[in-house]
């Protein structure tokens, strides 16, 4: 706003106070409520940028995550903070992490989908632990017999990993690349020659559907193997 009384220093201080005390990330709409005069997005954005810049070289930084803006400590200070406070969130087992990865990358998924991909039964406790952590929740039911619940990751999951959107997750290896993992020289040809008959498969995997990720995308619904 071009109101003559617009004082960017004041706006910065108020915004900073709000962000430092908030228990959750704040969105632009929340920040606007701090001021009587209507503040436009540009002015707010400018103030946020300046607040962020003022943190340069300090131990905290202003970040924009899925639910909004918030301050956090820079990871390089964690080792000092750990000395004072030995309490850390649990380091999850592979079972939990694999389940989380499947929900994150294939959402929405049912427990059955997760079991199909992992090839083992997924315990209720495991799902509950991720729900209790606030990282996954039920977003609906799949319309098949039994109407199984569909799980997806939450905004808090993104917030807790300091991400703005699911697209910020590390990209998946594509299946083609996983196939290539074997060095070309390392083929075991000879010994298993007898069985290695069907070159067709390795030559053009496309026909077998191995190279067609569409097959395994969540859209395929309950047929997802």
């Amino acid at each position, binding site marked *: 706003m071009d109101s003559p009384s617009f004082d960017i220093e004041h706006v910065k201080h108020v915004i900073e106070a709000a962000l430092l005390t908030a228990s959750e990330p704040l969105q632009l709409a929340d920040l606007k409520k701090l001021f009587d005069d209507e503040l436009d997005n540009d002015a707010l954005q400018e103030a946020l940028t300046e607040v962020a810049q003022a943190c340069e070289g300090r131990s905290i930084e202003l970040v924009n995550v899925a639910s909004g803006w918030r301050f956090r400590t820079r990871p390089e200070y964690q080792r000092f903070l750990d000395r004072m406070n030995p309490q850390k969130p649990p380091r999850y087992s592979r079972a939990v992490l694999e389940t989380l*990865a499947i929900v994150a990358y294939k959402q929405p998924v049912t427990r059955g989908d997760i079991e199909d991909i992992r090839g083992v039964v997924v315990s209720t406790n495991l799902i509950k*632990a991720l729900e*209790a952590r606030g990282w996954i929740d039920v977003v609906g039911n799949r319309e098949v017999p039994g109407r199984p619940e569909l799980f997806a990751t939450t905004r808090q999951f993104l917030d807790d990993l300091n991400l703005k959107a699911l697209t910020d997750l590390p990209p998946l290896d594509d*299946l083609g690349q996983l196939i290539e993992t074997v060095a070309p020289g390392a083929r075991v040809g000879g010994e298993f020659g007898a069985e290695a008959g069907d070159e067709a498969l390795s030559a053009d995997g496309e026909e077998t559907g191995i190279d067609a990720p569409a097959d395994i995308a969540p859209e395929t619904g309950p047929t997802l193997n």
Partner: protein
Amino acid sequence: MTTEIAAPIARYRGEPVLQLPLDLYIPPDALEVFLDTFEGPLDLLLYLIRKHNLDVLDIPMARLTAQYLEYVEVMRRKSLELAAEYLVMAAVLIEIKSRMLLPRPPSVAPDEEDPRAELVRRLLVYEQMKLAAHRLDELPQVGRDFMLVQVWIDKEADLALPSVNAEDLHQAWLWLLQRASVNKHHRVTRDQLSVREHMTMVLRRLQEVSFLEFTQLFSQEDGVPKLVVTLLAILELARESMIEVTQQEPYAPIYVKLTHGLSVV
């Protein structure tokens, strides 16, 4: 193979492999642990495939099945608890293997799938998720790799009390387990909780009166389970020196009181 013995056929973890191991040797002591290392049959199969540098698109089924079955067999001999999934996978492997042994007519329809295709697809999808899980775990995580900022607001009127639910306690216990690595030690089951609850109830009753006759702690309306739990609670309290149980002479009434008879707290 034209390769001479001296030339490594593969590199595994940077080590040249001169000869394919003939079998998967598992030290007997490590077997149980070995089983725990895997998240299931897919994980085990992937391990076997990657360890032997097998071509995923051209899996030698006879070899893989033999190794897998050998492994499953050892587990059974050791009477380890074998998850059903492992047996199901054994059946799948055998089925694929036998289908591959069937002669194929030269005029085989082009759309006929390689019997291994479905297994390969599952293995790759699983491997993809396994790697994704690993990377997910490496992302900085709140509370573990960075902290959130929370500055105090000096405000007297703020009387909103934090709320807690049962799941919060569940989560808190997970934190405790993690830090103390006490996983197996703190087995708290419903039964034990019930004893603990009755220990508290007995202590509360003894606070109201200085002592009670043993029998007064039991009520006839209580069912057997409750009577037993109450008795266990009293024994445990006595063992932990929280109460005293006394009897002047045989057959005399038994009295229960707080240690030192203190009802004042």
